């Protein structure tokens, strides 16, 4: 029941927005988001970390193809739900200041997108999962298209088509899996039960991985991402970077590792290599960016690259690290892009060269930005550190050289973050900065919670690891048993 509500509440609220008055749209949206957050908390309180699948709803849906409406939450899903529902109120508040045209539609889309993403995280039937997967894409498309700046139209097409390109191959894979089992069922139980011959596993693996690699994105499938992030309105960017790409990472854990273990065992390391190279690649490119938002976009590629590499170690260390880091990355990305937005409001551009000396005018802003930045370079006691530590540790255990690439982000991250911070915030105050004003309470309402989250999860990552430990071990067990089974054969 909770699960269903978590999906429906935002969507219904979003649709309701369309008929409610324009001028209160943002407030109502915020209320809806907070309600969802409250619901999430309630769910979390009733959630038993060792209870496996919980709050399950499982009804037949499309008999002609044996498709079921099956949703439920284990620790992993719970964590993702928490992530998306913590962020969405912040994101909505963050958009209060810049009045978007036609706010009703804007916030409606935001909420629908949130609901759809929740759906992705809880659906336990691949067909249903795919529906939500695509459903989440549509609002994003409209958000970027209608409220984006610059070459939004062109970029949106690329973004949509490119991601769809991957998803469609995933669709083929899903169908293939479904026809293997009895009665074309796409239910998680049937999918997990399948014994797929190792050689065909490769194709399934590739099909899935293509979709996820584009969504995450993993080098070299990332080129849609910087443009999209740069040109989309900042709330959309936050949703894309904060939650949507987690859909890809989550899906790897949920749908690749247990389903095609042999292929993962066989070819996972190649993905690791690509991801690790991507870390270096993206960090290096971020270093030479002149546009702050684009810089953050590339840095995001680097971070998720590390997470991907960690996941494919298929060790508890790696997966738990991924979990921790997903949450951390979500929070930090929202922070970073909000900082971007604050700057954009003043400069009407993200050009680093134009900025400088802001710290003199806005020490508090500078401080908060500093904290967010430190979090994104994974300084200890910030939320990103435990995750990064586990991930690097796991990757290192697999192969030190891959880890060297993956770790290059630790250094390069410091390079581009600190240099850009220096150029933007420090130094003598230039003429344009003179009119810059210290952030007001509304901004604080976004940034301070983020900073708090940064420290909470930095000091007490057990919250996350404890939540997901059981489910992660389950996944790993399925994986190992299947592997060993196929080795015996």
């Amino acid at each position, binding site marked *: 029941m909770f699960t269903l509500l978590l999906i429906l509440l935002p969507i219904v609220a979003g649709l309701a927005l369309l008929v409610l008055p324009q001028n209160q749209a943002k407030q109502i949206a915020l209320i809806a988001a907070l309600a969802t957050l409250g619901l999430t908390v309630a769910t979390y309180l009733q959630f038993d970390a060792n209870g496996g699948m919980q709050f399950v709803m499982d009804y037949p849906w499309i008999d002609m193809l044996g498709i079921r409406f099956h949703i439920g939450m284990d620790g992993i899903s719970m964590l993702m739900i928490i992530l998306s529902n913590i962020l969405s109120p912040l994101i909505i508040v963050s958009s209060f200041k810049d009045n978007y045209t036609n706010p009703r539609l804007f916030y409606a889309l935001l909420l629908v997108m949130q609901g759809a993403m929740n759906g992705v995280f809880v659906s336990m039937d691949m067909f249903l999962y795919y529906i939500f997967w695509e459903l989440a894409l549509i609002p994003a498309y409209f958000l970027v298209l209608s409220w984006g700046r610059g070459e939004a139209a062109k970029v949106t097409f690329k973004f949509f088509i490119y991601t769809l390109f991957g998803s469609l191959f995933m669709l083929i894979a899903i169908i293939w899996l479904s026809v293997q089992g009895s009665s074309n069922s796409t239910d998680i139980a049937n999918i997990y039960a399948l014994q797929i011959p190792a050689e065909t596993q490769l194709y399934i693996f590739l099909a899935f991985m293509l979709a996820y690699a584009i969504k995450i994105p993993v080098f070299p499938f990332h080129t849609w991402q910087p443009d999209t992030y740069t040109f989309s309105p900042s709330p959309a960017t936050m949703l894309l970077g904060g939650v949507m790409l987690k859909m890809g990472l989550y899906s790897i854990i949920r749908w690749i590792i247990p389903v095609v273990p042999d292929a993962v065992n066989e070819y996972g390391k190649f993905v690791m290599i690509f991801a690790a190279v991507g870390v270096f690649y993206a960090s290096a490119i971020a270093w030479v*960016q002149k546009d702050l938002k684009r810089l953050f976009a590339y840095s995001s590629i680097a971070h998720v690259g590390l997470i991907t590499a960690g996941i494919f170690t298929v060790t508890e260390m790696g997966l*738990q*690290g991924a979990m921790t880091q997903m949450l951390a990355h979500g929070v930090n990305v929202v922070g970073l892009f909000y900082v971007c937005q604050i700057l954009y409001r003043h400069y009407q551009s993200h050009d680093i060269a134009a900025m400088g000396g802001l710290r003199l005018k806005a*020490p508090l802003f500078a401080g908060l930005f500093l904290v967010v930045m430190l979090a994104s370079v994974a300084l*200890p006691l910030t939320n990103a550190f435990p995750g990064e530590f*586990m991930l690097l540790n796991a990757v290192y255990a697999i192969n030190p050289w891959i880890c060297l690439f993956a770790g290059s982000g*630790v250094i390069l991250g410091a390079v581009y973050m*600190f240099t850009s911070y*220096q150029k933007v915030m420090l130094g003598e105050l230039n003429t344009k900065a003179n009119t810059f004003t210290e952030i007001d309470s509304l901004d604080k309402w976004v940034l301070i919670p983020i900073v708090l989250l940064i420290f909470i999860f930095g000091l007490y990552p*057990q919250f996350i690891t404890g939540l997901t430990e059981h489910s992660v071990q389950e996944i790993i067990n399925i994986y190992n048993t299947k592997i060993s089974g196929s080795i015996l054969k």
Partner: protein
Amino acid sequence: MVKPINVNQNILTIITTLIPALPLFGFFIHIFMKNKISEKAAGFHASAWIVLSFILSLVLFFQLNTTDAINIQLFDWFSVGGLTIPFAFQIDHLSIIMMMVITGVGSLIHIYSIGYMHGDEGFNRFFSYLNLFVFFMLTLVMANNYVLMFVGWEGVGLCSYLLIGFWFKNQEYNKAANKAFIMNRIGDLALLFGLFLLFQYAGTLTFNGVNESLVKVVPDPQMLTIITILLFIGACGKSAQLPLYTWLPDAMAGPTPVSALIHAATMVTAGIYMIVRSNILFTLAPFTLEIIMIVGIVTAIFAGSIALKQNDIKKILAYSTVSQLGLMFFAIGVGAYEAAFFHLVTHAFFKALLFLGAGSVIHGMSGEQDIRKMGGLEKNMKITHWVFGFGVLAIMAVPPFSGFFSKDNILVAAYHMSPLLWGLGLIAGLFTVAYMMRLYYVVFRGEGRMSAEVKSHIHESPKVITTPLIILTVLAIFGGLLNVPHLFGGGKMMMHYLSPVVPMDEEHMPAATEWMLMAIASMAIVLTVVAMRVKYMEKKQVPEADANIKGFAKVLNHKYYVDELYNAVIVKPLNIFSNFLYKIIDVQVIDGIVNGTGKFSTYCSTQLKNLQTGAVSFYLFAMALGMVGILLLIILM
């Protein structure tokens, strides 16, 4: 080896937790009531916290007489896949000394700063940073596991970044700050990898756990070598050894008290502390020790030689720090951990003293740092002159000042290995003598070379500055007594005290040799002093202006062009490469392919559409042909 503690555990817990907590608390006060509190109050309470935690450390120190270590477990930070990282403190004889040095010297420097930073717009901010630094430094030394130590390790790095770039209006300073942080990061990455490997090897990352497992499992030399080398690289970053030392001289951009506290007394010695802390590990990896020794001694001489030709008073001291740290690593390399640690302590005293003295000079010279524009300060700044003088004596290892004992320890240990090493150590020492004397003479003796109006308000610094100086002087003079060798009937107090952590090797060499070595050393020192005196007192030479520095001196003055080298070999190429990746690979190639497919299909469409001519006759043709085609297809199949 850890005995249970009979005294009330809770009280200990509270005390121990308070020690780092108080500075942190101070930091938060600064953050939350930024501009509400006056400068005076801010300075006062900031120092008060440190003094308090110094007192608490003393309490613990006496507590430790009854036991070897106090273990405080706060909570599990994170635990996953067999790795559990507790948020726990382990106070043993090693860390308690560090704590006292940190809090002690720290509090002195805090007090000093009240005077030094007086009237700076960022006064409160400065103290908040200092408090934060002390907190992290304490975490570093109190941690009972490597990861928690790493927290402090990075934390102090952060504070150093903040404090170097304290005057953030100056982008040069900011660049220096970035440089410091980034170079440390390089080391940190290596350190992290070392920890991962260590975890694989030992299955845990708490100090005790590691040590126990080292005893249990049969050592795998190669593995251990790799681990220790990685750890050592980390130490290099933090303690400014070759090749990662270049950030330290630039770090002098920060306010002088910072240089004294962070870049001389405490933070930069973290590397030493870490290695001494894991001495069992390192002892099992002799190859690494050799490397450490070589790096150490090379750094010592290298930096010393650079210091000879520097003209910025703080830069000279910075290079001397590098060189002293080099000596400490040298000591570790020859296996004399306790000697290294001892030198660490004494160095903390006299180098802090020197920096603060220099600070007082700069303060008096209204911000001037170039020694060529000084001179003859003995008259105007008597106290400063005296304390600085003692500092110089101490660092030159003139008996019976503290430096003498610590350096002597190192040299003796080196001699045990081979006389050659002893010689090298001595040379490094002589460099120290040379540049310190040069500094002393050029700054304090001879005539003043400063401009008239500067000269007009040269003044002795206020009490709040001089008092800490005097206290430090005392420490610098008598600090040596902590570890007096048997030769002078001393009991090697510190060595014994450290024995639970650092197993001591009691090797005795014939007193004669020891006397002889000491004699030679002192002789050499005296000779160098004389030479310098001749050069700068009798000949009244003054270091030339940069323009007409010639030959090798020029190379030294330009620090062997190492910065330029790094720039040309690493930074520039990397930047070019990144641009290549972005402009060519990313935009042209990868994105080109993506867009290309789209373009291609539109192109196909524009070509294909020409088939749709609009003439019926052609359509009929197409249809007939289509029929023929499918008929053919089927008939053929």
